[in-house]
Structures are given as C-alpha cells and as structure tokens.
C-alpha cells in the first residue's frame, strides 16, 4: 500500500476499502467469497487443509476469477468448527471436514444448492439453520471487542480500513485534544477488562498528570487464566483494532511508544500482530508524524515466557525489562513509575479493542449498553461441560442463566448443572442460586467470585468441587513467584491440606486450618495473585460445604472423582468372563480365566483409572 500521509488520504483510502469489502460481502461485481475460520481452535481441526483444498479445487474448475477464498478470525462457536461461510448468500457450513470440500464446491459453488447436512441444526427445534444471524448462539450477542472477527482477513490492512478501522484514530488526531480523549473514555465508563475493572480513563488521567520526557503504553496479552482465550482470539482476528486502541491511549496521555506482551504459546496471534505492525509501518500509520499531524508512535512486541504471574501488571513490566517476572510493591503505580521507571499504563487487549468503538460512536452511545456500574460488553470464553463451547460477547447485565442456557445451549448429556467458575484461579464458583445474577464487575464480586479476564468454565454433577479447588491451588502453587512468603508458603500449605482431604486423610481440624490459611494468604500477599489465591477455596467451601464433609467424615467423593476414595468392583453375576477389562487394564491388576472364572480386581494394585469400567460392554463394573 502506498503511504497514507494525510487525513484526507486516509479518508479516501477508507472509502475505497469500505466499498471493496462491502462488494465482497454483497457479491457486487458478480464475485463470491468464501470465508474459512483461521482461529487456533479451527486450525487444530484442519481448517488450513480445508482452505488449501478449496483453493486447489476452485483453480481446477476454472473458478478462480469468480470465487475468492479467505481466512478470517474466530467465529466464536468453537465446538461447531471449522466453519466455512459463503458470501453473498451468507450460508454458514459448520464442522466441515476436508472430505466435505469437494461437495461444497460441486453442489454449492457450481450448482447453487445448499449442502444441507453441513448446516447447523437447532437442538431444540431440530431445524436446519443456514444463516449465522439466525443461530441462537449468536442472537443474544453484541460484538464490540470482537468487531471484525470472522469478517475481515486479519492479515490485510485494507480489510481493516474497510471495516471501520482507523476512523477513530483519525478523529482523535484531527478533532480532539488529548484531554478530550481522556474525558470521553472516562464518560464512557469503560473499565479494564483484564480482571480488576479499574476505570480506564482514570488510569490514563494519572499518566497524563505526570510530567516526563518519555511515557509508554503496554498492552497486556499474557492471558494466563487456563480456559480463557478472549485476548488470543481478538489478536488473531483483528490485531489492527487493538493497535489503534493503543495509539489512541498514547495520544491521550502523551506516550509515543507501545509494547505488546503476548504469550509465546499463541504463535498465530503473535505472527498476525507482527504482520499488522509491519503493514501499518509501511502504510505510514505507525512511525513519525502520522497523517502529517505531528503525532508519532511505534509498536514493539515482547513474548511472555510462560509465567502466569506476568499477567499482574508490575510483574509484566519486570518481564519486559528482562528480569524475573516478580511483582513490584505499589505505590508507586505504573502510571507514575512504570516501564524503565517511566509513566506507563498497562491495558488489557480487550480493553484496547473497545477504545476505537467508543471514539467512533461516542461515550454516551457506548454507555447505553450495560449496567449502572459496568458499561459496554464483555467477552467470555465458555468452556467445560457446556454444549456450545466458544467465545461469546454479551452486554454487561446479561444473566448467567442466559449465558449458560440460551447462548451456551445447556449442559451436554442431560447432566445436572453444578457450578460455573468465573475469574479463573483468582475467581470463584457460582451455583444454581446465582443463575439469575446479572453479570457485571460488582455483582460477581458481591456473589463471591469475580469477572477476571472472562474465562467461564461450567461444571456438572460429575465434577468434584474439592478436586477443582485443589486443581486451582496446584496451579497457583506452580505459578507463585516466591517473592513474598504468605503466597509462597500459604498456597503450598493450602494445597497440602486439600490433598489430605481428597486422599481421605482430612479431619475437621483440616477445615479450620484451611479457613485460617485462606485468610492469612489473602490479607498479607504482595500482589493480586496471592491476594486472590484462596478465592476458589472460600467459594467452594461456602457453596459446597457438604462435599467437603463427605470427603472428611464419610471418606467418600460424591462425584466419584477423587481416586483414593473410590473403589472399582466387578459384579461376578454380570461378568461375562470375556477378559476385555483385564486386557485394557494399564497395570494388569484384573485376574480371571476367560470363559471360565469371573474377573476380580486386585484392589492393592488398582490405580483407579476407570479404564476397565469404560471398556466393559456389559455394565458389570461399578465404582463407589
């Protein structure tokens, strides 16, 4: 692309690109477009091979000048992926396999007939749905942070420009003073989406108030919460939107350099981000004197090297500085003394992805969506025991019930809903009684959990809550940086106590000790990692105290998860002596004589893996 050196040139470019993208979507000019999901989940499910096969077949049939094949970012409905969408008809095919490609080309692209069996089937009405907007999963969503996801090709600056990209940047550079930008963001009520929920505009104001020769913007893409992938999907689907948000932040408080800190485990996001930075530099949208306005801005990328604590902003800054990612005591806050000692605002990916929209539509319009204390939308990564696993963006104030049942499609296999964990290892679990809670930053805290970055893991009756609490504590132990002793020792001791309980060695005193330790760790740790580490314990204890008691007093795990407390038996009456279980057993602890004697499990050797039970076709094996 030639350099865009003035606001007028940008306008011209935007209108050219908008027309081009809209022609692609509406089929103006007689060309059809195929979009294929290129998010991490679908790529792992062969979407790259689907694209290659589509391209090859279309070329072979001589259709290349009439049909284009594009990769786009995450469609969000990951459990139904990979997706193939065809414009202008707006037909959405789901769970497409490489072997389906030939039929899509033959039946749809050549003969104009929809391939019926690749359409989404509504589980309630059993009707086939051909258009994305008619699918229940999408109906209740509102896309602000996910703007452009699954529409634009994330590798093309032109498509971003054709889909509202950089209109906000132009507006702030040509029509607004930095203070007006900050005021607008404050007025919008935008709060940080990384978990804390601190008002973004106020953070910018703090940095603006400090006089300094150098300031930085840092984008926190170190999404460590296991089971959360909002930031990754945004960066993979529309990196331009996030860079634009970062530049607007820079303009607002006087920073001219930005650092992205992204997990090394996200290679596709990293590659697309680097590509976007490069394309913008070439187009003159990053660098010196952008659009001839005198504003200069440069972007850099640093990779997270695998430490959960680096999601904490001061630890993240240490990591960028090449040190161990340990948190710094606050104050001074990063907005005063941050990266290399200079004023720095650390903003989450999703936060920055909302900035452009706020500037484009205005704070008042943005603030119409959401609740009194939390404006706008929030992206959640729905996972675990839920039918529609995926990425959803809903207005603040949506109820958990709506999130789980209307959008998430409920629990698979007619199992009973037990709990939903929000806020990851720092959050808590919410249960049946919380289902009608309207989700926002404050209601979730009031209910004993927190928003966190947006991971939402659903659990059903087969999950043991004590085991889940122990799982989170294991995670936190691993990830505690070791700097302060309440967190380093406290989390380890909590983990040991929970292990005692799940192994059947717990007593009522163990519970008292747990409560005490949870309090100490919470009150005395240096950073949020330790301060919130005990949340999963407190919330599972508050909601599932009877499960703790069952483990301690009855030495039973009601969900049959905790191995030490469960036993597998073969019913000699039902056993058909087929030897299948014996052959499947990884530790060879099942003995019998094929066709003659029923099989018996040697309890002293059994590792309680459950393989035998899964193998037996006659239902002869049970556990308690």
């Amino acid at each position, binding site marked *: 692309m030639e350099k865009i050196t003035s606001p007028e040139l940008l306008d011209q470019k935007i209108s050219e690109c908008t027309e081009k993208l809209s022609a692609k979507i509406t089929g103006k000019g007689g060309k059809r477009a195929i979009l294929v999901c290129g998010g*991490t*989940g679908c790529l*792992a*499910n062969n979407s790259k091979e689907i694209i290659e096969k589509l391209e090859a077949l279309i070329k072979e049939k001589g259709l290349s000048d009439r049909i284009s094949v594009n990769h786009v970012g995450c469609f969000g409905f*990951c*459990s139904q*992926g990979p997706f193939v969408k065809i414009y202008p008809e707006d037909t959405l095919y789901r769970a497409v396999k490489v072997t389906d490609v030939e039929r899509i080309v033959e039946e749809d692209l050549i003969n104009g007939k929809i391939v019926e069996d690749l359409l989404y089937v509504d589980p309630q009405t059993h009707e086939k749905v051909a258009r994305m907007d008619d699918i229940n999963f999408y109906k209740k969503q509102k896309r602000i942070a996910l703007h452009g996801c699954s529409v634009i090709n994330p590798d093309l600056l032109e498509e971003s420009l054709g889909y509202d990209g950089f209109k906000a940047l132009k507006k702030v550079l040509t029509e607004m003073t930095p203070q007006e930008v900050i005021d607008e963001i404050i007025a919008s009520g935008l709060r940080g989406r990384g978990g804390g929920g601190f008002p973004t505009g106020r953070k910018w104001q703090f940095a603006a108030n400090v006089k300094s020769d150098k300031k930085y913007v840092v984008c926190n893409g170190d999404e*460590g*919460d*296991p*089971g*959360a*992938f909002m930031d*990754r999907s945004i960066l993979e689907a529309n990196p331009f939107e996030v860079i634009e948000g970062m530049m607007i932040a820079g303009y607002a408080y006087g920073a001219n350099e930005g650092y992205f800190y992204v997990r*090394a*485990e*996200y290679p596709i996001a990293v590659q697309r981000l680097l590509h976007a930075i490069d394309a913008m530099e070439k187009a003159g949208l990053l660098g010196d004197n952008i659009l001839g306005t005198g504003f200069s801005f440069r972007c850099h990328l*640093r*990779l997270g*090297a*695998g*430490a*959960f604590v680096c999601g904490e902003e001061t630890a993240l800054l240490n*990591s*960028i*500085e*090449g*040190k*161990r*990612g340990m948190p710094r005591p606050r104050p001074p806050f990063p907005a005063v003394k941050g990266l*290399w000692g200079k004023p720095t605002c650390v903003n989450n990916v999703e936060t920055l992805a909302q900035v452009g929209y706020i500037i484009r539509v205005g704070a008042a319009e943005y603030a119409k969506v959401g609740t009194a204390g939390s404006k706008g939308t929030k992206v959640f*990564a729905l*996972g*675990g*025991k839920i039918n529609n*696993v*995926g990425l959803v963006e809903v207005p603040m104030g949506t109820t958990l019930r709506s999130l789980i049942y209307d959008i998430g499609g409920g629990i698979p296999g007619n199992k009973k809903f037990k709990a939903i*964990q929000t806020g*990851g290892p720092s959050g808590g679990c919410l249960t049946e009684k919380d289902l009608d809670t309207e989700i926002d930053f404050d209601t979730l805290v009031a209910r004993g959990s927190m928003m966190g970055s947006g*991971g939402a*893991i659903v*659990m059903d009756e087969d*999950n043991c809550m004590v085991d*889940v609490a122990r*799982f*989170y504590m294991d*995670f936190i132990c691993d990830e505690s*940086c070791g700097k302060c002793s309440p967190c380093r020792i406290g989390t380890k001791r909590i983990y040991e106590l929970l292990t005692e309980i799940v192994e059947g060695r717990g007593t009522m005193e163990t519970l008292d000790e747990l409560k005490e330790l949870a309090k100490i760790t919470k009150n005395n740790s240096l950073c949020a990692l330790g301060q919130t580490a005990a949340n999963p314990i407190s919330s599972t204890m508050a909601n599932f105290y009877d499960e703790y008691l069952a483990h301690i007093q009855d030495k039973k795990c009601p969900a049959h998860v905790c191995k030490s407390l469960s036993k597998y038996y073969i019913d000699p009456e039902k056993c058909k002596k087929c030897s299948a279980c014996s052959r*499947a057993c*990884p*530790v060879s602890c099942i003995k019998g004589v094929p066709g003659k004697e029923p099989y018996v499990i040697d309890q002293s050797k059994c*590792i309680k*893996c*459950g*393989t035998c039970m*899964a*193998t037996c076709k006659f239902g002869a094996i049970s556990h308690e």
Partner: protein
Amino acid sequence: MKIRLEVIKDVREICQKHKDEPSPLIVILEEVQEKYGYVPVELQEVISEETGVPAAEIYGVVTFYSFFSLTPKGKYVIHVCLGTACYVKNAQAVLDKMCAVLKIQPGQTTEDGLFTIEAVRCMGACALATAVSVNGKVFPRVESKDVEKILDEFRNQEAK
C-alpha cells in the same frame, strides 16, 4: 557438558543482533531456546559475556520461566493440556496414562530420547478438550484409551 564451537559462535551472534534493543535478555534467551531446545549453563555464561548481565541473574531468569529448559528435550514433545476446560473433562487421566505408558513423569524425557511429556496450562483449544499436542500437531478430544494410538503414530514414524 561440551558445547560445540559453532553453537557458541551462533549464540554470540544472536546476542549481537539484539544488543541495541532495550533490556534484550529474555528476547535472546527465547531465540536460543527456540533454536537449540534448551539453554544450558554453558550458554548462559556466553550470553553473560556478551550482554554484561551477571550469569547468576541469567540463571535466575532461565529458571523462573517455564518456557526455558536447562536440559535437552525429546524428539517428540508431548503437551497434555491441563487447562481448566480440559481438566474438568478428565485430562488428568490422559496425563496419568501417558506417564504410565512411557514410564516417565511430566517434565521428563524417555531414555531413548524420543518423548518428553509436559503438562501445559491451556493451549486455548478448549472446544477440543481434552487436547494433546505432539510437536505442535493437535489431537482433539483425547481419552486415555487413545494414548497408545497417538504414541504409535510417532513410534511408527521412527520405525520407518
């Protein structure tokens, strides 16, 4: 451990390439890890000479982040996802089975140098839970009964 001279030369070049960036230590370590699969103490000393950062501090950084390894990894690195979404779908059983079959613990490498097992926290393929990846190739919806089949795929590659 004896490090080959050309490796040392190459690591020096990597250091030189990044020397003008602010605080480049982790950037350098990431490149070395990526290229050679580990960052042994001997190479940390080379990096120390080039960057002027004390070797003890480099060791501190290398051992802090899970991305860096002090020992070489196997030819096939198996990642079993233990993110929450996978964990609630019984990922632990898959990991246990994997360990039982290969007779190693997470983080260890088999004696023949073929497999390394690592328990990782969320690769973001939550819709494919339980997800297992081997050298980047993702196996979706793995159950413990699938473990042998996955391993065989790579054992067969070796046998060829």
